[in-house]
């Protein structure tokens, strides 16, 4: 296992290298001079030239890239042009928000999607199956931000059951101190249950919105994986042993069916992180997605650069974790 992990980590290197290269190239392809953006539109050409010199923008691209890599390995992603805040610090503040949201969404997707898929597979072609499958098909077909707007309209504006946006209400936010940045966790360890409830209420709509696509996809994948597994020889063997059908499904089929599902969970994390851009915008969620988006709009190059590299890396690492858990679940994998 140790070797396997090591090998997987080594395999990451070219991908991470590619990510940085791609992001670096993108930002240098964007029309417009970063120096002018930084200096504002009243700067004189001399000032711009001086800044370009200082920022190393006059160096040949490969050298710039090397310098950029050099900084990167020292976790120095530069500072925001506009606020001057170091990117890495901003990421540390914002990542928990995005991560909490994504994990909540993924949990919803797992908790609802997998049982739905199993049920649909076991009761194949029943009304239950049809309902789940049409539901999930509609789920993957909906623009999430649209669903988000509708949910806000319904639950926050009309019914006023849930807050329309933000991460925590002002009062609850005043009474507690973020420690880890994961508000659910922070409120709990501080014993502030009112604030916990408040955080939960704020999380509900964005997490639900964000979860639709993974939920739908997980239900579909689980179903097809279950159907596939249920047709396997070893299921016939399990039945031939005289096992109860429930045990056949939950012991023998489910664990095998989870293998493809787990891969999808990893991939869907990417969808979640991407979907966070839109969802966070709608719900004023102070996470990475919204930050990157604002960075793009305001041409805050270091923000975009740092943010995108971070998200891509996070995604790659999450996939790695998922793959490793796959290896735990599937004894065959380490030998492949």
């Amino acid at each position, binding site marked *: 296992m140790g070797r396997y992990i090591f090998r997987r980590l080594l395999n990451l290197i070219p991908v991470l290298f590619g990510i940085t290269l791609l992001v670096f190239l993108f930002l240098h392809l964007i029309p*417009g001079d970063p120096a002018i953006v930084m200096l504002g539109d*009243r700067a004189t050409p001399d000032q711009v030239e001086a800044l370009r010199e*200082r*920022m190393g923008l006059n160096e040949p691209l490969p050298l710039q890239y090397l310098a950029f890599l050099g900084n990167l390995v020292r976790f120095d992603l530069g500072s925001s042009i506009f606020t001057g805040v170091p990117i890495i610090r901003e990421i540390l503040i*914002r990542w928990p928000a995005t991560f909490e949201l994504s994990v909540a969404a993924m949990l919803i997707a797992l908790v609802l999607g997998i049982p739905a898929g199993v049920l649909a597979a076991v009761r194949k072609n029943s009304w239950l199956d049809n309902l789940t499958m049409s539901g999930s098909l509609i789920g993957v077909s909906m623009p999430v931000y649209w669903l988000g707007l509708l949910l806000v309209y319904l639950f926050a504006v009309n019914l006023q059951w849930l807050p329309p946006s933000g991460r925590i209400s*002002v009062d609850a936010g005043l009474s507690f101190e973020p420690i880890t940045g994961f508000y659910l966790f922070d409120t709990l360890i501080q014993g502030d249950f009112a604030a916990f409830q*408040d955080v939960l209420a704020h999380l509900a709509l964005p997490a639900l919105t964000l979860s639709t696509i993974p939920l739908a996809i997980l239900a579909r994948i689980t179903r097809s994986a279950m159907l596939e597994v249920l047709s396997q020889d070893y299921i016939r063997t399990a039945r031939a042993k005289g096992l109860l059908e429930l045990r056949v499904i939950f012991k023998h089929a489910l664990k095998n069916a989870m293998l493809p599902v787990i891969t999808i969970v990893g991939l869907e994390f990417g969808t979640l992180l991407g979907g966070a851009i839109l969802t966070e915008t*709608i719900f004023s969620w*102070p996470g990475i997605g919204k930050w990157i988006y604002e960075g793009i709009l305001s041409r805050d190059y270091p923000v975009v650069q740092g943010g995108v590299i971070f998200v891509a890396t996070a995604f790659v690492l999450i996939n790695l974790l998922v793959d490793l858990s796959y290896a735990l679940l599937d004894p065959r994998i380490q030998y492949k």
Partner: protein
Amino acid sequence: LVNCGSPTDTTTSEVDPAAAPEGGAETTALVYGSGGQPVNLEPGNITDGNSIIVQQQIYDRLIDFEPGTTDLVPSLAEEWTSSEDGLTWTFTLREGVMFHDGTEFNAEAVAFNINRWWDPEFEFGYRDAGRLYEIWGYLFGGERGSEDSILADVVVTGDYSLDLVLNQPFAALPAALASGYFGIASPTAIQAGTDYGTPSGAAIGTGPFVFEEWRSGDRIVLSANPEYWNEGFPVEEQLVITFVEDPAARLAQLRAGTLDFTVDLTPDQLAEIEGDTNLEAVYRPSFNVGYLALNPSYEPLATPEVRQAIAMAINKPAIVEAFWGELGLTDGHFTPPSMEEYQSAAVDDYEYNPDTARQMLADAGYPDGFELELWYMPVSRPYFPNPKPIAEAFAAELSTIGINVTLQTKDWGAYLEDRNTPPGFQSFMLGWTGDYGDPDNFLYAHFGPGATDDIGKWEDEQVFSLLNDARAESDPDARAEMYAQVDEILFNEALRIPIVHSQPLLAKRSNISDWTPSPLGSESFEAIEKS
């Protein structure tokens, strides 16, 4: 969880963390919904409204504005006088004022702040990554050492007095210093670290509220300054500024009671505000202009008649009525209506008349019209809360006189940058909100020397000399006369066609009182009371 409680008595200004939100959405602290997070809290280093309004709560400036107007009132400076020749301004400072960090406010502190903004060589100017305190150079001609710098020297003449020595007379100097950028910060705090004014750093002023905490992307928390020199203020103990970018979300939060008051709503939201009995609409006095700029360096637009034809072809009243309703008015002046004294009575707006416009185009040699690129802003600003459909409306109107409009936009930074890069945009939408109550701030900034890159480096000797003379002139009537002349010329030139002077829409919950919005876009919240 939200909004299910009764509007219980929340007059208590004590913050009681234990009395958590259980009961209802109403919060104990005063909560302001900002349209975005400040860039930073370092005076002089920002130009955006979101930063200014927060700084306004933390810092005092030498001179302030009378609430709701652009009239100057003493703040940290109790008195200011100009010498005969207009080249020396003497300020007498308020005594006994303390910064939030307990250090004393005095003339040295003021000099420290001004040097910071003005002097590129100043040791404690954090021009990180080559950044400038650009607003200073912009309002005062340039940095120290530059030719055009209006300021020549800062001279501390006593503990509580100092002189600003000028290179040329500048009548609007006090007003310019009063603009929201120039809060006086604690020199001690500034010297303490490079992250001054960032979320992890400090922000120390003398203002009504003390900076407590800035959670990036989420909120800034301020508390009342118990030592505030203006006795009896602030009224509320705690002020929380939360960032909600999207106007619909802001209004939704206001309706849900998680915000107490907010700004930068779109005119279309007025109906929604009026439909909610818990809310009241608040209008910011108009002090802006949204305009359509026509760049004469684009061949067809070089002829003034063509520009005038365009002005006539656009049904401004109908558009303003449609998009702003009662929140906007349109006239022929570039300066807002509150500057009536500087405007020419002779200027009446172009009459909407596509037929005449078509004729004029034909006379100018364009019987079949021409192609025109029109750039619209990608962002919402008080003067154009929703630029895109308005641009589409222009396009539709112009198509009726044969001008075929292609709409274009870019991200905001590029938009601002590229319009100044020759040859610039053929035509574009932009606007302006005054920094202080002087026409100089509107007219010089758009038609003065060096301010016309985006309209093809347009030059008019007469306008330039009038604007320069008015700067030096200290007699108000004479100045008014000069600006009126400029007003007339500009009207006929039709270079930046004023479309609207809007009243930005704000809203508050009905239990909020004594909020007096400033025409300049930012005001102190010290008097606001939450009941």
